[in-house]
């Protein structure tokens, strides 16, 4: 690749991306603070925004230390990391080790003061192993067996995460894997077939959920997953031949299930162009936006209500900056391994951003996908910053010294 200004001193880190990330972190802390209930009684160090700052610090430290070691050396550990996370994913399913945090799904492993979501780390180790696997010569990628193996690497964590269940996190692996295969040079016809197959499967699943009679369900979805899909497609919860009583109960349930989405939309929409001002959002102050999700999965609703469309544009712009510097890094990478790592991370971050913001405006069904760097949550912040660190790593070691 030909660099136009060879004699100029090349920066060692991509400052644009770092600025964008710092900007996102500031926004994150500010609005997690804003999303706290008005009469929060917890001591200051237990409050979410303080803990988020701590996580940012830990995450930055992790990102910097990632940069110390050349990504080639890191990639050698990819297989071990991959299997280790698979073990964690299995462990989290065992009731004694994994906890549910009172939610429906078993997603967390308790480490005393903090909990970790192995699914988040599985995404990173998956990107590493996939990049490592696909960085073989392009000719080999033309063999169907290689493609099948690549799919196999995706399906293993996919199924385990699905089992938690965490459909959102599991589904994110698919576009990431696809993007990496595509950029690596896997023939398009293979990918199209895969996309076609998955498409048919998803279509069948939707038909099953939306139209099948209640007693007949060949694919078993969790109750809440089915409900979320029904909400997303705006379908009546009651089946056509339900009794008035059933219908009444179904209506009530529908109201409960639609509540979050409805309140998120009201938050975002009522923000208007300029928003109501920081800490002036009524949806959180009056607890219409459920306080237990306002600071994590629905943080974007808080930002959009308080800062309006202008705030949303700023957030999207910052993500655009991160994603496109990521793509540039992929283009500038020294080798295919670096390029694929960068592509995987860009795809991962993009999927998160798209699904999470999309869910706030009812473009996407509700899933537990956090918004990178803005949502409260240790595992998510840590992984996002490590991901950014890997990008910088690829950038840093783009030349042989």
């Amino acid at each position, binding site marked *: 690749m030909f660099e136009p200004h060879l004699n100029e001193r090349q920066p060692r880190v991509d400052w644009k991306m770092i600025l964008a990330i710092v900007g996102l972190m500031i926004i994150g802390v500010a609005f997690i603070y804003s999303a706290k209930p008005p009469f929060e009684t917890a001591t200051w160090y237990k409050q979410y925004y303080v803990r988020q700052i701590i996580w940012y610090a830990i995450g930055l430290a992790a990102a910097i230390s990632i940069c110390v070691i050349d990504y080639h050396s890191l990639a050698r550990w990819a297989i071990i990391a991959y299997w280790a996370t698979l073990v964690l994913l299995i462990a989290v399913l065992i009731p004694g080790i994994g906890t549910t945090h009172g939610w429906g799904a078993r997603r967390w492993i308790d480490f005393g003061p903090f909990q970790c979501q192995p699914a988040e780390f599985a995404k990173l180790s998956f990107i590493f192993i996939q990049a490592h696997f696909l960085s073989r010569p392009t000719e080999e990628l033309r063999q169907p067996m290689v493609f099948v193996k690549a799919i196999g690497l995706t399906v293993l964590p996919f199924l385990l995460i699905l089992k938690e269940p965490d459909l959102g996190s599991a589904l994110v692996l698919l576009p990431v894997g696809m993007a990496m295969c*595509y950029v690596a040079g896997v023939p398009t016809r293979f990918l199209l077939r895969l996309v076609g197959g998955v498409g048919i499967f998803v279509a069948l699943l939707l038909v099953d959920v939306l139209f099948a009679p209640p007693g007949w369900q060949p694919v078993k979805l969790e109750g809440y997953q089915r409900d979320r899909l029904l909400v997303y497609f705006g379908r009546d919860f009651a089946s056509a031949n339900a009794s008035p009583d059933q219908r009444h109960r179904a209506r009530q349930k529908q109201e409960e299930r639609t509540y979050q989405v409805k309140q998120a*939309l009201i*938050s975002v929409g009522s*923000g208007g162009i300029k928003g109501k001002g920081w800490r002036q959002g009524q949806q959180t102050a*009056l*607890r219409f936006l459920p306080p237990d999700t306002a600071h994590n999965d629905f943080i974007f609703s808080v930002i959009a209500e308080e800062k309006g469309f202008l705030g949303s544009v700023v957030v999207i712009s910052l993500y655009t900056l991160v994603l496109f510097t990521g793509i*540039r890094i992929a*283009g500038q990478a020294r080798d295919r391994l670096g390029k694929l790592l960068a592509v995987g991370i860009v795809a991962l971050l993009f999927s998160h951003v798209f699904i999470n913001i*999309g869910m706030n405006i009812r473009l996407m069904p509700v899933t537990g996908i956090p918004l990178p760097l803005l949502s409260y949550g240790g595992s998510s912040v840590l992984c996002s910053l490590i991901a950014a660190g890997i990008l910088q790593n690829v950038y840093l070691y783009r030349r042989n010294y």
Partner: protein
Amino acid sequence: MLIFDQLRKNDRRLQTLAICVLSGLSILLLGLWYVQVVLAKRYQASQVSQSFRTVRIPAIRGKILDANGTTLAENHPDYNVNLYLEELRPYFQSHYSNTLNWVTKELGKAGGKTKLSRAQRIELGKQTRFQVVSNLVARVTNSLGVPFPLNEKQFLEHYDQRLFIPMPVFSGLTPPQIARFVEQSGNLPGFDLDVQPTRIYPHHSTAAHLLGYLQREDAPMDEDTFFNYRLPDFTGATGIERAFDESLRGKTGIKTVLVNSLGYRQSENVWSPAEPGQNVYLTIDLTIQKAAEQALHSGPEGTHTRGAVVVMDPTNGDLLAVASSPTFDPNQFIQGLSHDELQSLNDYKLRPQINRATAGVYAPGSIFKTVVAMAALEAGLNPKEKIYNPPDPSEPWHGHIFVGRRKVKDLAPPGDYDFQRALIKSSNTYFITNGLKAGVDRILELGKRLHFGERTGIPTRQDSGGTFPTREWQQANLGGAWFDGNTANLCIGQGEIAVTPLQVAVLISAIANGGKVFWPRLVSRVEPQDPFSNYQPVEYPTAHVRDNLNVSRRSLDLIREAMHSDVHDADGTGRRAFVPGMHICAKTGTAQIMQGRKIVGHTVWFASFAPYENPRYTMVVMVELDEGIGGSGSETCAPLAHQVYLALQKHEQQAKPNKPGALAKN
């Protein structure tokens, strides 16, 4: 540019990736623009509707005052205790979690499932909330010594539907209870004292028919959608309260209450404050009104006397007293009526809710002879000319007259009658003879100018027109068959004629003032309570002439003279009304109430004005009598009129030293 550089890459697959990412982000931006810019109004509206409740605040009702500014209807502060549930939330929470712990422990001991289902937890929440509230309320009931008012069903209903307003707990606290409550409320969370204006009629049943009463107002259908809650409000049901409801009511205020997702009140904001209603000033003089009602209650059946008294100023048509009996206490309607009270209000015979003075229609009897007299005198009757009244063969001490083949009795003794004697003795023979001579058309024309058969236009709505035959009416109802018999009946105020006491007062006033037929005036002005209000005071003109009798001065003087003799001659029928120092002029009357061909009772009248020289008062007294109860205008009504005239005389003497001409001004 960073973005376009990536789109122009020579690595085609990376370029595709960049395009995908860019279009994904553009979709998000587009979606956000749609939600936040295009649909912003809609979402802002639904945010307001889910977090604001509008509450309608009734304004303080205006007063009703008499001509001298004495209050006839006003508002009285009623003290209530309200409970602000949002202040009890910490208590709800701690009691709930304590109970939940205890329940879980007990379940654990029993060895069963320790976790409660969602429905069970909701039920537990309901129960614990009620326990907290009922414990607190019980402490207040103990200290106030009142019965325990809280009902679980009502509480839950309030909690579910009206959480944004405080819950009323006690109402109508007495001063000692207020004192005790204020002393102890400091250590009770959530309780607060609230003052609510309540309508009060300080003179109870006095002028009840004119004032009317209030009834609780339910939300009209079209307003329902706007207000989430209406504070209790009342609307006028009858009388002035109804006629001037809009002015009295003022402008209702609106406040908005900000609520959280559970419906608890967070803050309040008054959008538009309530503006107090305007005061309505009547022409009524409370002293005269009271005297008139007292007089009625000394009638033949005490407070159950069915009758009416109207006192009017003949110079301008102002009503000084409009009394009807039996009466009722309008305060009862505010407190709510007991079964017995409702029964007596709807008594078939007494009908206390009817204003007999303005809405009751009666045959005028001999009172109407004044009209016949005007018609005859105008037709050229010579007042000195005598007419012989022959004795009735069956009752030789009474006279009689044959009209066609029908014999009409005359209670006046047989003998010769000139105009004055005929009016005093109320001779049927004389007036039928002269009425027929003058012709029915002259009588009908006078009745038309007096607007008999038409409403008097007072605003209280209890305003009957009565009946009076016109040529058109004759055509429509009798097929044009009008005989001398009909005219003879009309000449003695029977048959196809029915009037209200108020209409009679208008007639007598016209005789007294020289022929002016007034619109009676009841309301003199409406003015805002606050002199700096935007509302302009409204004056209703006095001496509003409706018509003119066009009867010569000579004829009226002759009638007035005869009416004066009726009270001042030894054999006058109105002599029982005599008051020393006041020249009263009167005509009495007794009309039969027929049911088929049977006489079931009498309407007895006393129609008068005073003083003779310079009339200031017109007074009409009417009493309904059952058949069998002896009585006549002379025996029953004249003494009542006497009482009222005495009171008027006393009132004038009291008023004169401090306010010269105060009454004349009325």
